[in-house]
């Protein structure tokens, strides 16, 4: 069993993942994420970034190994308790995964409604968030009426609206212009400063330089390397900022 640290938010221990009977897409992945840290997950296309993120946002169970999230064993957790864990996460999916027949407003409001927030309480935050991502005038548009970049901004607004403890984003700036990409990164940084752990998967090396304090996890053919020492134990002093 891997040694655990107080305040850890995620701990992977020799995790492996395979789909069906294919070869493992992730092998012997072990790392610990700390509250308030900012991580970039990089790697070539097909390296396993999305698979690793799926394990992080509890869309997939690993084939082997152990995963602890928020102090809970995520492997043996009964599925009826998974929603409570998922509500502590914000996820930006690579393919956005917006509900196609809901408006931008309703898509952004969805996590709050799921969590039981009343219409009166959620109206202003949702409107503010849509304004912040520059979609105040498009709040009634359905995803099909939005451009790729606009859809991505809706997806990001939906991920952060609930002030999650950990934000997981899969190529969040892939479809937006450079100015919006910087703006979104600043949003992630602002959330990070407020204590949210941020994990951003990207293949854009220029993005890594934009967040000076970020730590980098690199995936290569399903195996994790640690170029900035982000994953070692105990973490470097500035890693565990939470």
């Amino acid at each position, binding site marked *: 069993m891997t040694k655990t640290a107080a305040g850890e938010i995620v701990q992977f221990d020799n995790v492996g993942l395979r789909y069906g009977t294919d070869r493992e897409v992730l092998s012997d992945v072990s790392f610990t994420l700390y509250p308030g840290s900012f991580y970039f997950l990089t790697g070539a296309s097909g390296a396993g970034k999305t698979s690793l993120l799926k394990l992080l*946002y*509890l*869309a*997939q*169970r690993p084939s082997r190994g152990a995963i602890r999230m928020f102090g809970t064993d995520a492997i043996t957790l009964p*599925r*009826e308790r*998974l*929603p*409570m864990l*998922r*509500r502590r*996460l914000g*996820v930006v999916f690579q393919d956005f*995964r*917006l*509900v*196609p*027949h*809901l*408006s931008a*407003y*309703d898509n952004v*409001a*969805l*996590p709050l*409604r*799921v*969590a*039981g927030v009343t*219409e009166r309480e959620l*109206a202003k935050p*949702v*409107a503010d968030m849509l304004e912040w991502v520059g979609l105040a005038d498009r*709040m*009634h548009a*359905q995803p099909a009426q939005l451009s790729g970049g606009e859809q991505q901004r809706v997806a990001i607004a*939906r991920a952060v609206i609930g002030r999650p403890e950990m934000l997981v984003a899969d190529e969040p700036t892939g479809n937006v212009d450079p100015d919006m990409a910087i703006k979104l990164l600043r949003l992630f940084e602002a959330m990070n400063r407020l204590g949210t752990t941020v994990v951003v998967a990207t293949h854009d090396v220029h993005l890594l330089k934009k967040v000076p304090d970020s730590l980098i996890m690199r995936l290569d053919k399903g195996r994790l390397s640690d170029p900035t020492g982000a994953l070692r134990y105990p973490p470097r002093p500035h890693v565990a900022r939470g």
Partner: protein
Amino acid sequence: MRLFSSQSEGSFAQRWRSLTGQGGSELIPQARLSGPTPWVIAIMVALTVIAAAAGLSFSNTARSASDELAGGVTVQVIEANPELRARQAEAAAQRLRQTPGVTEAHVVAPDEVQRLIEPWLGARVDGDDAIPVPALVDARLRDPVDAEVLGALRRSVREVAPSARVDAQSSWLKPVFGAIDSLQWLSLALVGLLAFAMSAAVLLAVRTALGANRDTIEIVHLLGGTDVQIARIFQRSIGFEAVGGGALGLGLGTVVVLFLGQRFADLGAGLVNSGALGWLDWVLLALVPLAGVALAMITARITVLRTLRRML
């Protein structure tokens, strides 16, 4: 929890759209869920109303006939000599009136007997060609007639009317009661089968809807939605469809039941008329669509929860 409403919701029309699932803000669009489901429910409810009405009518017939015949005794005096026949019939009636427990006994008038047998033997023929018809004595007892009472009556009546044959009226209709009993069970079985068929139709509709909305359900799951929250969406949608279908089915079934009731009433036959539905029966029939709605919603809930259990 509401996963449905939109910020722009507010007007009555928008609220109605949201309720009925016609709005763009429904998490699971109603059109994907419904299809022919409301019509299937309407047909099932209509058939259930008709089957239940038949069962209740049979029950009323059996109860009414049973009450009427339970204390009835008929004495037939089978004697070729008309004078002797009349004398024995009068003596039997007299003896019955004197018997404790007998509340009423009278000789059925020959004209009435003739009227009763006319459908089978034709119009009255007088004179030497007349077919000898038994004299009848109709008696009412305070309590239902059992074998012991019947035996005592036979012995008593035969002392004064040797040609008399004493029968309990209920025994004549025993095969009819048996048939009515079978029809009642058949009605009950039909109601059960229709309920099963409706559940199966709802189950298929929900499974299809679950398949069609799999992506949306997965998103809601990943955002922290629970199985119960998702099941509630389907339950609600099916509930609205079942209310519409149930109301339509009740209307259709009621029209058919009223029409058939009128046709049977026109027969003017006592046994048939005794099967008429009372107000309590109509209340029970009105509960059929409500039971249908409850059944559809429970089926939807169980189906969704069981299917979602296979997803992460």
